[in-house]
């Protein structure tokens, strides 16, 4: 029990790290909105996480009811790393820049809320552990 006491906190931390990285990437895109030839980057994380958990698409997990069943889970969740991808194939303007400010601003707002959610989840996780420890 004790070695996975913080497992959900670790997963939440992974999510918030990805969210933090996404915030930096979005900031960089916004800073370069007037840079000729700049191509916007974005962070891929949720898809990779869903793929690793085997819950891609339907959101339902395949059950493993027999030891001989093949699990749909393709990897360990803790091994998933956020990836920064750059779309070099499109151009938003004549100068070759493809930063869409509206998209970036809405992503920024979305990402902040996501981060806040993860932070309050981390805090509630710690509160739960705290109350469990203090029961006498």
């Amino acid at each position, binding site marked *: 029990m004790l070695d996975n006491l913080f497992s959900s906190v670790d997963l939440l931390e992974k999510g*918030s790290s990805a*969210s*933090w*990285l996404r*915030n*930096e*990437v*979005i*900031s*960089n895109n*916004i*800073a*370069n*909105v*007037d*840079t*000729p030839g*700049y191509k916007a*980057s974005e962070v891929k994380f949720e898809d990779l996480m869903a793929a690793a958990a085997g819950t891609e698409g339907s959101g339902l997990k395949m059950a493993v009811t027999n030891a001989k069943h093949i699990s749909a889970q393709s990897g360990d969740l803790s091994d998933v790393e956020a990836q*920064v*991808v*750059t779309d070099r194939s499109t151009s938003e303007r004549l100068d070759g820049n493809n930063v869409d*400010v509206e998209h*970036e*601003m809405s992503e*920024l*707002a979305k*990402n*902040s809320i996501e*981060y*806040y959610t993860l*932070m309050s989840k*981390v*805090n509630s996780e*710690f509160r739960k552990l705290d109350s469990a420890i203090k029961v006498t």
Partner: protein
Amino acid sequence: MGFLSGMDISASGLTAQRLRMDVISENIANVDTTRTVDGGPYTRKYVVLEERKDNFSDVLKSSAEAGATGGVRVSEIGKDTSAYNLVYDPDNPDANADGYVQYPNVDMTQEMTDMISAYRSYEANVTAFSAYKDMAVKTLEIGT
């Protein structure tokens, strides 16, 4: 990247947009300047921006895996080589033999639209900066 280095990204955007604003202001202020130290009328200036990649590892990282780099910087302040506006005004002391005065190649409409563009980009960077700051504050509240 350090804990608050993302703020530098937005700050570099703010600096770049402010410089754009300065250059636009200079163009507008000199829209009727017919004499400069170099001789001839004032020449319109423009700002060219580029991605900021400070060191070898940044360049290597961005070409290898395309990560978040260090924001933006001004690569040059260029001079517009387009022709000056000729205005017929024989009484002007700067008029040439045919009575034409060379006025700066500053287009007021273009400067005004550039100004709004710089202003909005500046605002976008401010928003990104505050989002980053609020997130950092939330991080420091973990476990409190």
